[in-house]
């Protein structure tokens, strides 16, 4: 039975490989109704999820999310489920890396300059990464379950090659926007013009009726 499935799989891959398409388009980010500069578009991650699940090849090298100048770089890191990420610390100070996202919680502990730890992210989803010491540090790891993902270039253009034909979801993710999704068939769609509004609602630090902050330090990042 297993051989039969292998055959089907290969056949499908072949078919798929045979029905490969290319998704390309232009991504423009808008904020407050006005377009941002073109190079800002490279902040977003664009990925396509076909209807049929696609086999994922384990990447070899772990991706890197550095801590540099009290910031995670890159701030948004797309990987494939099952991939690994290393968190080197390039700052002279001690840092901590952790996340409490479901299924992908980890804690790298405190460490100074160095290579840091490597963590495998098995479940797809958005993993928010923080530093326990520095509350303003945050990063996103987007654990995808499709290999077809890219970032826009400095001009805002993007291209997804060898996308299997057939319907699927095209998602544009930006941490400051709601996920942009569209069901398309790469084979039949031409170049896309995607506009994403960075309109994810933020709650301003609200104050009590006396105009003072509520008791305790304003905890923007709770966990």
């Amino acid at each position, binding site marked *: 039975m297993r051989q039969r499935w292998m055959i089907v799989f290969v056949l499908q891959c072949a078919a798929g490989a045979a029905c490969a398409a290319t998704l390309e388009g232009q991504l423009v980010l808008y904020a407050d109704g006005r377009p941002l500069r073109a190079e800002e578009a490279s902040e977003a991650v664009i990925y396509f999820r076909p209807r049929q699940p696609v086999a994922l090849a384990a990447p070899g090298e772990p991706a890197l999310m550095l801590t540099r100048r009290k910031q995670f770089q890159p701030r948004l890191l797309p990987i494939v*489920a099952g991939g690994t990420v290393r968190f080197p610390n390039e700052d002279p100070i001690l840092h901590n890396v952790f996340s409490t996202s479901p299924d992908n919680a980890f804690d790298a502990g405190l460490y100074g300059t160095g290579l840091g730890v490597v963590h495998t992210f098995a479940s797809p989803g958005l993993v928010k990464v923080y530093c326990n010491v520095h509350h303003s540090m945050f990063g996103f790891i987007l*654990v995808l379950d499709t290999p077809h993902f890219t970032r826009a270039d400095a001009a805002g253009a993007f291209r997804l090659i060898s996308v299997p034909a057939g319907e699927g979801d095209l*998602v544009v993710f930006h941490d400051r926007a709601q996920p942009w999704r569209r069901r398309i068939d790469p084979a039949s769609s031409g170049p896309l013009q995607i506009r994403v509004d960075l309109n994810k609602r933020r*709650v*301003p630090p609200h104050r009590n009726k006396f105009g003072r902050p509520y008791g305790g330090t304003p905890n923007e990042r*709770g966990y």
Partner: protein
Amino acid sequence: MNVATEPAGGFRLSLATSVFLLFAILLGLALGAAIWVTWQRGDRIAAQAVQDKLDVSAAVQAELTERRLEEVQLKVQLIAADPSFVKYVNDSLGGGLGLGTDSGLDIASINDLLRERQSAVGFDLGLVTDAEGNVLARTDQLEAFDQNMADDAFLASALAGPSPISGFWREGAMLYQAAAWPLDLDGDLVGFMLVALRVDDALSVRVGKASGADIAFLLPIDQRIAVIGTSLDPTLRVALDAAIAVDAGGMAAAIKAGTRSERMALELDGQSWIGQLAPVDSAGGGALGATLRLSSADRAAAGYREILNLLALAGGVVLLIALPLSFLLAKTTLRPLATMASAAKEAAAGNYQTRIGIRGRDALAQLSQAFDSLLSDLREKSDIEGYVTNLSRFLPDPGSEAAPGQTFVTRDLAERAQMADPARQGAALLLGLDLRGLARAGADGAAPAVALAEQRVAGLLAAATAQHGRLVSGSGARLVFAFDTTDRLARALAVAREAIDLDHATAAGLLEGVLVEGAVRVPGGSLKIGMGTVCHQLDRLLVEAAAGKVLLPKGLGESARGLLAGEALPVQAGLASGKSFYALDAQALARLVAPLPLQTGGGDSLRTVEQPLAANAPTPSRASRQAPLLPGMRFGGRYDILGVLGEGGMGVVYKARDLELDDVVALKMLKPAALGDSEHLDRLKSEIRLARKITHPNVLRTFDFGDVDGRPYISMEYVRGMTLRYLIKQTGRIPYSAALRIARQLSAGLAAAHQVGVLHRDIKPENLILESSGNAKLMDFGIARPLHRSEPGHTQPGMFVGTPAYSSPEQLSGGEVDARSDVYASGVLMCEMFCGKVPFQGASTMEIYLAQMQREPIKPSAWWPEVPPALEALILRCIEREPAARIQSAIALGAGLAGLRA
């Protein structure tokens, strides 16, 4: 007498009723004013209290509302600021990435968590929305309805922030106090949490209790206003619903407009309430509804109403008690006035018999006492008028002006003489009087002559009767009297003396013998005759007598010597025969020391002794007697003699017309001897001078003194009336009220005389004359002497001047005489007037004096048992033996009499 006219028609109230009505009206006004003022003030104060209550309650209600809102805010914070809650909600929502475990919306979990939180924290409604306002879960719904609240005004403002918001929130037909909080995950808006507490009766009751005023929350629903919560009782709630329904339009408009209304009057269940309308949320406008604060005006005014009711009740009770009482008081107090009014009416109609007799000292009592005395005055006046009028029927006609006293005496004597003995025989002493003075009487005419003769005869008769003699026979020339008492000689001599004094031409003779007396009937009457040898002898004796002499035979002469103080009798030869007779002339007769006999019921005691009986009495130098004045004669060229009024002690009194003044006066002729003695004349003039000074209605006025042809006279007021003596003789005693009036007038006149300085000295009933009007006049101050003698020595001590029966002890003993002697005499007079008899009885001066000194006076009550004790006491005080013990003056006597009222 005027007939009092009744007021024409109209409504006449008695004085008591008027006073009572006035009092009632005043009381009613006072009570009414008190009640009205209390009512008004009470209403105003109550309204003010309600207003204050409402204003105060407004503040309290605002505070309570604020507190509850804070409560809701805290609760929503408690839930929404909890990060695990937010994470849970966020995870339930899913990321939308479509990656892996992204399973999509998990409403059930949110719902479950929400309910858990509700039971932990406690709120009426909670709901969770996503960032766009889509409702994810509600505690009041199990199913997840598709509902977006982005257009809800409340949440819209939260969404806009996104920021927390709290306040009143209306959803449909419900009103809440709600708070919404943004669910915030790392600064990202996940959604909103809303927690709400309902506004309902429970809240209203709490608010009402705390604030002191009732509250109702009103919500405009469709076309009507619904009461969603109130602290009122169910019955009142229903009434409120009804009241609002009635005024739905206006109130709805007010609520929708969101205006405040400071004061609304509502009628709930028959009570009066005051309300204040205010929108629930001034920011949200009227759409959210309104609060109606209510306070019962009736309850506030209840206290004052109670006071008012009590006041009215007390007032009613007071009125009920006071009105009848005041009516009674008015009647009782004013009854005397009514009595007096009716008495006055009676008096005006002529009936004086009422007596009011109120004791006391207030004005009313004084008025009634004055009234009483007025009435008694009137009674006395009417009594005495009646009495006097009654008696005046006996007065002689104005034609013949003889004094009634004299006439009476004459008539009586004559009748008595006639009736005494038709025929008798016995021994007697005869006195014959030869009236030679009448011989020439006819010179002026017949009528005057006869009048003169009558007068002369009357005088002689009186004298004889006084000496117990009786007329035997009489003619124009001769009168014969018989005396048969034990002391007949002395008496006869007294008569003779009198006769000679009257007319010096008279001759008299005395003889003793047996006599037969009788009266023969002749046509026209009867004729007195005497028969016997002695009569003839008497005639012959009279022939022998010279004028002015009394002839006595030897035997009688010897007897007479004893009477004449033992001196030798003069002897004279008879005119006719030349025989010797004892002849007494006036001078000799004057030496007669016979005591004046005093008898009861008339007699000498009533005759005034005006001359002292001492030997050195001046004898008249002139022997001749003046011719009497006759009516029709002109006297002194000024007076026309109209008639004879009487014979007084000092001389004849005529009635005359004063031609100068054309007035009728009385002329009192004095004895010519008065002129001869200059001392006597001066005395007389001084006494007249004093008497003239007395001008008093109760004293007979003396006008003038003069003398014509050697005849002195006094002119006096002419009064037509009766003497008190006459009245007493007629009726025995004078009726009480009349006598009281006379006594008062006597004391008044006497007081006037004393004030001038004159004593009367001879007060007796004969000297008190009563006019027909009942006015009494004191007269005949004939022997009056001045109180203070300017010329000492005129009245010699030891001499007695006065009338014995009425004289005081000091007067009888010849001592000092003053006003109190007059008071004494007045007392005796009053006793006789009131009771009929004098208090000291006696036949002679000596007897009376002894009675005064040794015995107590006979009490007036012995003569008249009904004498008032006060009067008796007064009389007795007047006749006290000691002058110091008596009433001291005529004025005091008058005061004492004023106290006695008829």
